[in-house]
């Protein structure tokens, strides 16, 4: 179908899009790596050994893990409920689940303050009972939970929708109960979509800034996640350390993206 006349178009369009990618995405990433390595790899790595840096990395890993587990579990339950059953109010539930995507990160932090800040509804009372949520790790987790809330459900739902219910019904008729069907039949088949949702959640949870900034209080070693610590470092004229940590986050982000791509590819190969 392609005639000689159109041989040139692919080349032009490819060059154009590669240029755009270069300017818009590669350049900022290159800048981050460039700044991080300005004083050599060794210095960059040294900065990551700083106790506050390490505690930021630890906190980020911990928050990410908790958030990913909770939102994955919730996302699976939601996707399953919404695609495998018919019930009234399903549409409303879908809208609610997707809502956080259109909520500003700042608001995502703010809403928790309204509940758990000292000026909020329950913050004082909880504080008196020794429970600190705002400006402590639980608050950060809540903010990250809110921001990454929809991703697993959103990636799973279209896939499960298209899966239909036949396999589940078959499993049911073969005597499998809810858990067995979910674990042995539905999830393995939706594996790729699930993983890609999890990776999105992970990436976003690690990198969240606005929401966490509102509720964190920037307490180094206690409530500073990596993105917040990057800001602190940058403001402390420790540009190399800041960019080294940023580069670390970028590398992790790239890894998740690569894993996602790889999974997708092997998935396509398996189910052509």
């Amino acid at each position, binding site marked *: 179908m392609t005639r000689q006349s159109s041989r040139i178009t692919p080349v032009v369009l490819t060059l154009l899009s590669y240029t755009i990618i270069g300017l818009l995405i590669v350049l900022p990433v290159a800048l981050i790596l460039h700044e991080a390595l300005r004083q050599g790899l060794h210095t960059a790595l040294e900065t990551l050994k700083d106790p506050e840096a390490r505690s930021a990395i630890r906190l980020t890993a911990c928050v990410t893990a908790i958030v990913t587990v909770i939102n994955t579990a919730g996302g699976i339950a939601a996707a399953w409920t919404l695609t495998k059953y018919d019930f009234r109010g399903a549409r409303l539930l879908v809208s*609610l689940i997707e809502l956080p995507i259109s909520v500003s990160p700042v608001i995502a932090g*703010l809403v928790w303050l309204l*509940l758990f800040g000292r000026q909020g509804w329950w913050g004082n009372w909880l504080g008196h009972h020794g429970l600190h949520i705002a400006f402590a790790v639980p608050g950060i987790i*809540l903010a990250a939970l809110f921001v990454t809330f929809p991703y697993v459900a959103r990636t799973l739902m279209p896939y499960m929708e298209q899966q239909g219910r036949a396999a589940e019904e078959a499993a049911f008729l073969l005597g499998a109960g809810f858990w067995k069907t979910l674990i042995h039949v539905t999830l393995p088949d939706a594996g790729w979509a699930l993983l890609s949702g999890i990776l999105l959640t992970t990436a976003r949870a690690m990198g969240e800034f606005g929401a966490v900034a509102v509720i964190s209080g920037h307490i180094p070693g206690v409530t500073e996640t*990596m993105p917040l610590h990057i800001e602190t470092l940058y403001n402390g004229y420790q540009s190399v350390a800041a960019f080294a940590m940023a580069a670390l986050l970028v590398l992790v982000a790239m890894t998740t993206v690569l894993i996602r791509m790889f999974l997708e590819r092997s998935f396509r190969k398996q189910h052509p």
Partner: protein
Amino acid sequence: MKLLTVTGLGSFPRRRQTLPGFSLSLGLTLLWTGLLVVLPLTALLLRPWQHGLSPMIHALHDARMYAALRVSFICAFLAVLIDLPIGLLLAWTLVRYRPPGHRAVDALIDLPFAIPTAVTGIALATLYGPGGWIGAPAGKLGLKLAFSPAGIVIALTFIGLPFIVRSVEPVLRSFPKDVEEAAFLLGASGWQRFCRILLPALAPPLLSGAGLAFARSIGEYGSVIFIAGNQPFHSEVAPLLIVMRLQEFNYDGATSIALILLVTALLCLIAVSHLRRSVSSGLVREDGA
């Protein structure tokens, strides 16, 4: 999603679901959604009224808020407008031409989503600032990119790009080859095939991608504040104003603006989905997004 029918509301007996586990999974879903979304948003809904109507009325009379909303919305709109052709071009190149390195590029596209927004902000501000790799040459040409609304648009373009590409890509990939061939055999030129056959099919995903990018953009904070300039009435975005009100210990004001921002964002999303529905007339089978 099947449509909810209104017929026979409550006129038939309660039915059990075919598959087991309905109450369990619905319960988990409701608990999860209730605690993490409904509860905090309820707080946001109620808080502005806690001290009567006046904070909200005051917020509604605040020209600065309107200016900030305008900046947020216009910049987000422009960014999406820029993202649309770029996203379409990228998706097209990756899916159709599969040029050398397309896999790597495909992976790169998700980066804006994954890189922490603050890092994005610092990197872009450095890059496009007066001394930056791009900012310096642009400055010589008399272009001021960073610390102006143009900076906001740049940051939001960066943030929104993956949304467009990722929603167009699968539709483009699964677009039936024979439909294009049919058009070819009926004599349509390459351009005619693109405009009359592909574009209408891509319009719904483009729109929903645009809707998502837009919603994300108007709320964007981290990547914007570093590059925006943050001048009231000029380059101050709505989320920053919320933070500012908080800083003034003005919770009622902050929540009022937050609520207004949220409601406007939702209205925009609803408008987009309506638009999308009218664009996809005839495409009865929606693509589940």
